[in-house]
């Protein structure tokens, strides 16, 4: 490997490249284009993935939502079309039966109410919730805090409102924390203001109040509208979903095959569909990128083959002067590797710049199409190494061609 660090080796390569500047340039563009495409496509795919992730971002992606509808099968003396509700007993049963699988379980009750503050008012959703809601769907608080256990235990009349509600109900510049608003003619102290999620949003503009307070104020007794469940790491969420539904069916005397009685959404499954699409796209990206790269490398092999053909005589002279086949081969392969490496690096730089520009143009703002389009450094290094290996392999062909011909025949070439 010593020849790699020999300035003479590079002098020789510089000499032969200088001789064919234009052609070398065009050849380099072939490989440059390949790795440029790979970088930009991978970056764009990543940006899109990040965009989707952001879309689901505030949600735990392993969530299942369950609510009740009407039965569609008669069972145990009940007619079909029966309506029923979830209750707090279900929560206890599920928590104890699926203690291993369930990480968080948030029962929820919701209603719509007129909310007033001084002379301003608006109709908003009111939701009775537990503090764990914040862990399932992260709330970005602008002021104050979210509900806590104390609020639940003391059935405190406190509420967390959205930014839009704050703007609608309060004068500009007033501090909402500690102020009282009227929900259904009952005073609640505002303890927090949250920024609404720009992406998936089940609640809209919603005043969150403690679950226990909701129960007391709206007299819901044990009734629950619906629940959010998140699974522990490593749990088969689809399995957990169907198991939970089965348990709930037996608790509520619903036929096990009843398809309509319970409604449920498995967020993981929905995300899986998108992820599958992204995986497909990434595969496509790799395929296109690598195919282009290979085409570029072949172009380099081709140009070296032509160069070797043109330089047959020169190679013959060198051999008459004592160049061994090995030294000739070394030089041609090194030339190939050098060209591919330079082209690869330039391609990466241009690709990076393009991603930077894409990020500036399309990656900014709340509803950006591509979020943070980047490529992993290790992936780029792998691509570069693959490129260098390909360059070596493709260089072998012209290198072989250069030495397969006898020196005497090479010398005769005109």
């Amino acid at each position: 490997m010593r020849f790699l660090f020999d300035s003479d080796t590079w002098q020789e390569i510089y000499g032969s490249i200088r001789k064919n500047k234009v052609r070398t340039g065009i050849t380099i563009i072939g490989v440059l284009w390949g790795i440029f495409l790979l970088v930009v496509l991978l970056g764009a795919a990543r940006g899109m993935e990040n965009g989707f992730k952001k879309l689901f971002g505030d949600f735990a992606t392993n969530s299942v939502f369950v609510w009740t509808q009407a039965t569609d099968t008669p069972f145990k003396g009940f007619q079909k079309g029966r309506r029923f509700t979830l209750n707090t007993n279900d929560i206890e049963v599920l928590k104890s039966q699926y203690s291993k699988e369930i990480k968080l379980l948030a029962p929820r009750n919701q209603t719509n109410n007129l909310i007033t503050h001084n002379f301003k008012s608006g109709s908003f959703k009111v939701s009775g919730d537990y503090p764990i809601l914040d862990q399932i769907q992260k709330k970005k608080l602008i002021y104050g805090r979210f509900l806590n256990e104390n609020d639940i235990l003391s059935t405190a009349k406190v509420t967390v409102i959205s930014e839009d509600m704050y703007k609608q109900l309060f004068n500009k510049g007033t501090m909402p924390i500690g102020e009282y608003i009227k929900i259904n003619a009952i005073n609640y102290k505002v303890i927090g203001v949250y920024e609404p999620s720009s992406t998936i949003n089940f609640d809209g503009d919603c005043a969150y109040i403690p679950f226990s307070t909701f129960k007391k104020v709206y007299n819901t007794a044990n009734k629950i509208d619906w629940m959010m469940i998140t699974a522990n790491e490593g749990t088969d969420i689809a399995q957990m979903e169907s198991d939970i539904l089965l348990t709930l069916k037996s608790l509520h005397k619903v036929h096990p095959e009843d398809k309509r009685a319970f409604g449920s959404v498995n967020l993981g499954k929905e995300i899986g569909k998108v992820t599958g699409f992204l995986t497909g796209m990434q595969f496509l990206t790799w395929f296109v990128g690598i195919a282009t790269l290979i085409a570029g490398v072949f172009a380099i092999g081709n140009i070296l083959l032509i160069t070797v053909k043109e330089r047959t005589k020169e190679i013959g002279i060198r051999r008459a002067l004592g160049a061994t086949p090995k030294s000739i081969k070394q030089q041609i392969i090194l030339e190939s590797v050098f060209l591919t490496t330079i082209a690869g690096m330039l391609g990466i730089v241009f690709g990076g710049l393009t991603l930077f520009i894409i990020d500036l143009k399309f990656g900014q703002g709340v509803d950006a199409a591509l979020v943070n389009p980047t490529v992993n450094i290790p992936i780029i290094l792998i691509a570069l190494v693959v490129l260098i290996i390909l360059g070596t392999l493709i260089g072998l062909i012209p290198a072989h061609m250069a030495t397969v011909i006898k020196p005497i025949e090479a010398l005769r070439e005109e």
Partner: protein
Amino acid sequence: MIKIEKLHKSYPIGKDSLHVLKGIDLHIKEGEFVAIMGSSGSGKSTLLNIVGLLDEHDEGDYYLNGQLIKNLNEKKAAILRNKFLGFVFQSFNLISYKTALENVALPLYYKGMKRKERLQIALDYLEKVGLKDWANHLPNELSGGQKQRVAIARALVTKPKVVLADEPTGALDSTTTDSVIDLLKDINEEGMTVFVITHEEEVAAQTKRIVRLKDGVIISDELTKSKK
């Protein structure tokens, strides 16, 4: 220095083969200045190529510097060429994008010599052939005679045992021919074995021994008058 016994060489042409050298016996001692003469097709170039290890013979024995040349692979041949042989070609065969100095230094590069050292030696040899001032010129900036002198410097730079010249004056006019021949004579005076192929009687007459080839056999082998 060079000992050839019953050397045969034929080239395949389609199904037939062309028998070019038909049993050559030749013994060249160290310090000789030999001219091989013959019309085209007589096999003189083939003989030089075999002597120069650029081609392989079919039958017979060839000893270079006492070493039997047989079944050489390309690597060994390249090393022997570099070590023992210097070539001068009719068409100069300088590398067009290298300066005169770099051209002369090239054999030393393949010898594995350091750049600074070999450029110094190359410059010495350019001085010897009277082209020191032209060291940094490209071949296309030199005249034919100058090019051939650069080529001779390149052939000498490794201090070979034998200099092989294939029609060294073939592409030169008479004035430059004389200067090139004088240079070859000087080299020979210093003790170098010189082996020249030519079809010009005037050139041959200035060597010490003329070997005439015809149809692949030696028809005469005599010393010239210039042999003192």
